[in-house]
């Protein structure tokens, strides 16, 4: 039997649990976190329920239908333009009043609606009482209660969706804005309706209200219309700011008349979250705790991982030995031993670090501390010409720069967002960590930890300096106002954290098995040919390539082998380490890669320091360049990011190497 299709969209304020609900409904594993602005793109999933095939779309959160940031525009446009069968507003039951503000606006759109009252567990625990029947009656919309984290209420919700699909009633529950504004709304509606070619998906009343509120995005949308000028004439004749305030007032007034009837709130007692905040954002303790947490996360990433890394290292060495002694002919043994195991193995050793890193980051995201970090740092960020919210992408950048740059979408101001996108690549991501561990571990012995930490700090310093430079030159202006919700602290769910760790960690493994494997094989081939040369010698193709760029990199202390590694590292930074593995043929010998590096006079402690700094800063990896292009929509800025990165890297490495030599190292 052919299944019937239903398309439903999940909308609502940020951080109310839309994605958690989406995951519960569709069995997906989309990113969940306890801060506003986690989801920045629409995601779709399917579920088969009874005789229906339901398509669910998870949207970015939005406080109102007046969209400011990119992610909010995505959400709004989807609801209006794609016309889902049912618009489901997910509402935070413990924060009902503010959530209803969006409800009043969704109702103006006239789509068929359903309200999901999520986080009922929290409202209950706090002692709030919500009268569902009364709420359904007052809002003239069905209401379902859920606890998305515990998958409670999912079946009720699906049943209701199907029931609503059969009713097919579109109601318009409208708010009156008072005589004066209503007159203007009518006036604009009339003018707009004369344009027969207008986009009929947008209700006239809705467009008129938006225009009166000064919504520039909606204004843009009708700018081609022949009646545009006339509509604008009406808008220009009013006191825009007064209207804006008046319209918002009227909406809250409407809420205030219904809210007390459907909810009695428990007295504002001091919640657990408030008590945690007393400590974590305390005047004196706030900053020290923040620094201690960062340091702790850094320490854990390495300390926890060491035993696992040793195990992988031993296994890889043993495996390489075994392979090179048992494989024939010799070239095959060399390809597998030197190339694949030596190269890919050098990268895989760091899997434990990556797993721990992402686990810790997900704790940071799930607890609600990420929003506090933005809150604590906003003043400093402001001083360097950045927005406090930019701090969130920066912290995420320690995991991987790609999602971090995407996360910048929730920053409202275009300039704030551009600067964030341009500086995030300097934040040292997980892929760069193997480079530090290998070289610092090899050349700095007991000081390795300090050196690695210094690299992270260097990345942040460069990011700060760059932000300041950009603000002073190409992206002039002041950061936009900081207006951010601070969500209550929550205990991160173990499952979410493990999933986050696993999905990201696995991506690292997949990368090692795909792009890095290819890179490694290419390097091995180039190291083995032309036919007959000694493997990895200066006469091979890698030798020629290395020598070709060596003059440029010589002042930084890099010989031809490092030059080759850096060239291939452009694809993915892990390849710097992988190609060291290949070029130093670590696989065919029980001697570890680090011992072979130590034995090579071409690399010294100083040049390895310069190499670490250079690898950190030079050109973002291919995936990051791709996302910069996608997010800025501009080749100009993408090229800027690349060229600027290379320049900064060169200068920094030059200072480190030549400065070090002057000091006698």
């Amino acid at each position: 039997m052919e299944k019937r299709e239903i398309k439903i969209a999940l909308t609502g304020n940020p951080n109310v649990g839309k994605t958690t609900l989406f995951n519960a409904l569709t069995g997906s594993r989309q990113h969940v976190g306890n801060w506003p602005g986690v989801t920045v793109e629409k995601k779709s999933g399917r579920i088969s329920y009874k005789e229906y095939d339901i398509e669910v779309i998870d949207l970015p959160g939005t406080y109102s239908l007046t969209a400011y940031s990119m992610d909010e525009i995505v959400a709004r446009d989807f609801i209006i333009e794609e016309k889902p069968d049912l618009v489901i507003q997910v509402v935070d039951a413990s924060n009902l009043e503010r959530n209803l503000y969006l409800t009043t606006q969704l109702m103006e759109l006239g789509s068929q609606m359903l309200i999901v009252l999520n986080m009922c567990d929290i409202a209950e625990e706090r002692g709030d009482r919500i009268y569902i029947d009364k709420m359904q009656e007052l809002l003239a919309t069905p209401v379902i209660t859920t606890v998305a984290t515990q998958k409670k209420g999912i079946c009720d919700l699906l049943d209701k969706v199907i029931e609503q699909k059969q009713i097919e009633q579109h109601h318009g529950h409208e708010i009156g804005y008072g005589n004066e504004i209503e007159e203007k709304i009518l006036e604009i509606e009339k003018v707009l309706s004369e344009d027969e070619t207008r986009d009929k998906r947008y209700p006239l009343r809705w467009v008129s209200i938006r225009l009166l509120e000064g919504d520039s995005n909606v204004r843009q949308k009708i700018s081609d219309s022949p009646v545009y000028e006339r509509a604008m004439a009406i808008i220009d004749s009013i006191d825009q700011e007064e209207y804006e305030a008046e319209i918002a007032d009227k909406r809250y007034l409407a809420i205030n008349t219904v809210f007390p009837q459907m909810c009695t709130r428990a007295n504002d007692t001091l919640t657990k979250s408030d008590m945690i905040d007393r400590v974590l954002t305390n005047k004196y303790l706030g900053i020290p705790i923040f620094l201690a947490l960062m340091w702790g996360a850094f320490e854990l990433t390495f300390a926890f991982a060491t035993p696992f890394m040793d195990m992988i290292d031993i296994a890889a060495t043993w495996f390489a030995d075994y392979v090179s002694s048992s494989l024939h002919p010799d070239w095959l043994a060399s390809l597998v031993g030197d190339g694949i195991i030596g190269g890919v193995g050098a990268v895989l050793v760091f899997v434990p670090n990556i797993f721990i890193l992402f686990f810790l980051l997900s704790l940071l995201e799930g607890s609600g501390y990420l929003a506090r970090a933005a809150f604590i740092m906003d003043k400093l960020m402001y001083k360097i010409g950045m927005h406090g919210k930019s701090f969130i992408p920066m912290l995420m950048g320690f995991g991987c720069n790609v999602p971090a740059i995407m996360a910048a979408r929730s920053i409202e101001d275009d300039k704030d967002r551009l600067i964030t996108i341009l500086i995030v690549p300097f934040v040292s991501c997980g892929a760069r960590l193997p480079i530090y561990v290998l070289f610092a571990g090899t050349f700095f012995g007991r000081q390795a930890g300090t050196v690695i930490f210094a690299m992270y700090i260097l990345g942040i310093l460069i990011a700060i300096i760059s932000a300041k430079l950009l603000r002073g030159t190409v992206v002039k202006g002041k950061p936009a106002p900081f207006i951010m919700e601070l969500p209550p602290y929550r205990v991160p769910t173990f499952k979410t954290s493990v999933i986050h760790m696993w999905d990201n960690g696995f991506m690292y493994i997949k990368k090692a098995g795909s792009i890095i494997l290819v890179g490694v094989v290419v390097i091995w081939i180039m190291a083995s040919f032309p036919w007959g040369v000694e493997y990895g010698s200066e006469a091979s193709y890698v030798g020629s390539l290395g020598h070709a760029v060596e003059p440029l990199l010589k002042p930084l202390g890099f010989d031809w082998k490092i030059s080759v590694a850096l060239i291939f590292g452009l694809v993915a930074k892990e390849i710097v380490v992988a190609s060291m593995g290949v070029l130093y043929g670590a696989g065919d010998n029980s001697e570890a890669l680090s011992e072979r590096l130590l034995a090579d006079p071409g690399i010294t402690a100083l040049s390895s320091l310069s190499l670490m700094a250079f690898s950190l800063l030079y050109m973002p990896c291919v995936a990051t360049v791709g996302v910069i292009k996608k997010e800025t929509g501009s080749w100009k800025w993408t090229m800027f990011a690349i060229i600027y990165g290379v320049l900064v890297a060169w200068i920094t490495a030059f200072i480190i190497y030549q400065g070090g030599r002057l000091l006698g190292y």
Partner: protein
Amino acid sequence: MVDIQETTLDTLEPGEKARITKVRVKGAARRKLFDMGMVAGADIELVRNAPLGDPMDYRIKGYHLSIRKEEASQIFINKL
């Protein structure tokens, strides 16, 4: 007639409560503040300042909202 108690939001001390009388913030931030519940007639309480003094953590409509002093100084209130 001007209410003698009228002052601006940034003068609130931690723990003090007030009622908003007028929002004078301009530009995009203006509507954003409305969306977040900062409208005339709403009750608001300063919970604390950030460790570096700015921004501030306010409680409004039962949730925590953080804004900078600069915007707070353009929001008029009557202390309660």
